[in-house]
């Protein structure tokens, strides 16, 4: 994306269906969020709906975001340090694709991926650190880990290369139309993804006027000059969480695990939940009453 256009354009609001303007078949797509938190699930469902294929998906700590993309056949390749459904078990489509269907993947250690994104954002071709010495991950992907000697102390360090995705997709609490994005809950390394990527799509719980952003500038984690498109998608992280607005949806996660257990029932999952609109999705998962429970669970916490 042209950097100047990003700065000039103060109204980046678009409908979800517009993601096809920025995500193309074959792109490298970095996915925000971490664990079962803050994944850009509405955008991911839209990728599936739009029939975008042959993607190289990059995740640090993925979960249902990755599993659903794998299951829908959108990926040609995957970079990850971790893909887990956490309490719900191992990710069924991810396992099947690797164990049975030979999905190509790069298992890169967690800190290395993050440093790779960070390097891109700060304009350096590599960053050094005390890397995963002794891990077989290094043997499997030697092109990603190079030994480098500190020119001051002589210490052996590991260098990792800058990672530059075509697109980063991120879900956050709120943004203004220009793309100034506030994150309140679990943020993963979303800022570094945004800095590293050529194009950045942010979906948010709500779009607000810039004055609202200025009221608490300390919450603004991704300024507008990293953002190309802003999409209003309430519950756009569902079934993952968007703290403090709502918790992850354990009921839907259980339903997902059940339906992802076989390729056949996963097809049913896609047609029932994904192939309609987001509005239909929110109805199908339980509608307003259910969403209220998820909101309530996020509020009623007990500190000791």
């Amino acid at each position, binding site marked *: 994306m042209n950097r100047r256009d990003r700065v000039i354009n103060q109204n980046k609001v678009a409908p979800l269906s517009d993601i096809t303007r920025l995500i193309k078949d074959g792109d490298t797509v970095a996915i925000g969020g971490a664990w079962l938190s803050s994944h850009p699930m509405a955008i991911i469902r839209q990728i599936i709906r739009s029939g975008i294929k042959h993607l190289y998906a990059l995740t640090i700590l993925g979960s249902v975001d990755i599993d659903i993309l794998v299951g829908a056949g959108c990926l040609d390749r995957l970079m990850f340090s971790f893909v887990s459904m956490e309490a719900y078990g191992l990710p069924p489509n991810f396992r099947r694709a*690797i164990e049975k269907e030979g999905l190509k993947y790069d298992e890169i250690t967690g800190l290395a991926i993050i440093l790779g994104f960070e390097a891109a954002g700060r304009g350096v071709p590599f960053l050094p650190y005390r890397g995963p010495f002794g891990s077989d991950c290094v043997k499997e992907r030697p092109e990603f880990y190079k030994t480098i000697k500190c020119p001051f102390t002589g210490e052996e360090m590991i260098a990792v290369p800058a990672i530059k995705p075509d697109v980063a997709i991120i879900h956050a609490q709120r943004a203004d139309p220009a793309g100034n994005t506030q994150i309140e809950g679990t943020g993963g390394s979303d800022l570094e993804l945004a800095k590293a990527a050529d194009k950045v799509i942010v979906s948010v719980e709500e779009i607000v006027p810039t004055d609202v952003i200025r009221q608490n500038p300390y919450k603004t984690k991704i300024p507008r000059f990293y953002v190309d498109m802003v999409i209003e998608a309430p519950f756009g992280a569902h079934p993952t969480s968007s703290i403090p607005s709502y918790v992850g949806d354990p009921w839907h996660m259980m339903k997902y695990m059940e339906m992802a257990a076989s390729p056949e029932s996963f097809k049913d999952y896609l047609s029932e939940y994904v192939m309609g609109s987001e509005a239909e999705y929110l109805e199908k998962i339980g509608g307003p009453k259910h969403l209220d429970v998820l909101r309530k669970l996020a509020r009623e916490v007990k500190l000791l």
Partner: protein
Amino acid sequence: MSDYAEDYSTAELVCVAVAREVEDGDVLILGSFTPLAFVSYVLAKVTHAPNIMYMAYSSVDARPFRLTFGSYEAAATAGGVARWNMTECINSLYLGIGVDVEPISSIQADQYGNINISVVGDYAKPVLRGPGGAGAPEVVKMHRKMLGYFPNHSRRTLVPRVDFITGTRWKISNEERIKAGLRPGPIKFITNLAVLRKDEEEKPFRIESVHPGVSVEDVVNNTGFELAVPDDVPETEKPSKEQIRLLREVIDPYGMVAFDFKSGKERLPYLRDILDREVKALGS
């Protein structure tokens, strides 16, 4: 009269054993859904280690919180004094000041202190593709103590040589660790049967303690690698009555800590039951 509880589960015993590994002043991290670690940290914080600092998701120095299934992340976040995203967290804590302990669960672990969270079988065509190590490949070597926990102590889990080294302690003896710029500290595996410990590259894990009711033979027979067995193996310290009360009444009233010790099949129904109770407690 003893202060030790008589009525406790294995999960509670292991949780308390992990909590005992936490020392006041430790710097800790909570991330993935690991109820046992969450509960252990909170238990430590409300008892013997009030000043520990834990990162909980993006929340710095989170307050102790009641563990629930639906809202643990919200609770962890609500009490923080600052927000750091994952990048700040790795650069400042993991790579910067250093994390003290972090209980890590893995598919396999071996006699060298290697862990495997990646694959069972051949890497190119695995029998089981696991979740991957997240940051473990980098950080288990950096933790002051390496702490593995295994709800199911068996020859399938504790193997002579892992199929794939996702992460490793790298340097084990205090001498080697200090030479490599790492803080000294042992490897400990806390399992449903015993506590195993390794302090030297060249010496095997030894049994540090066996849990009440478990025999040394059980431990040896269920371990896939050689163990050093001291002449007199102590019994793992039982949870105190107060610890059990805190777990059940204050920190973990829904019994989340038992989750890891359930079989795969039992897990979802177990969670569903917790959820039902949790939603009921919300009121309408």
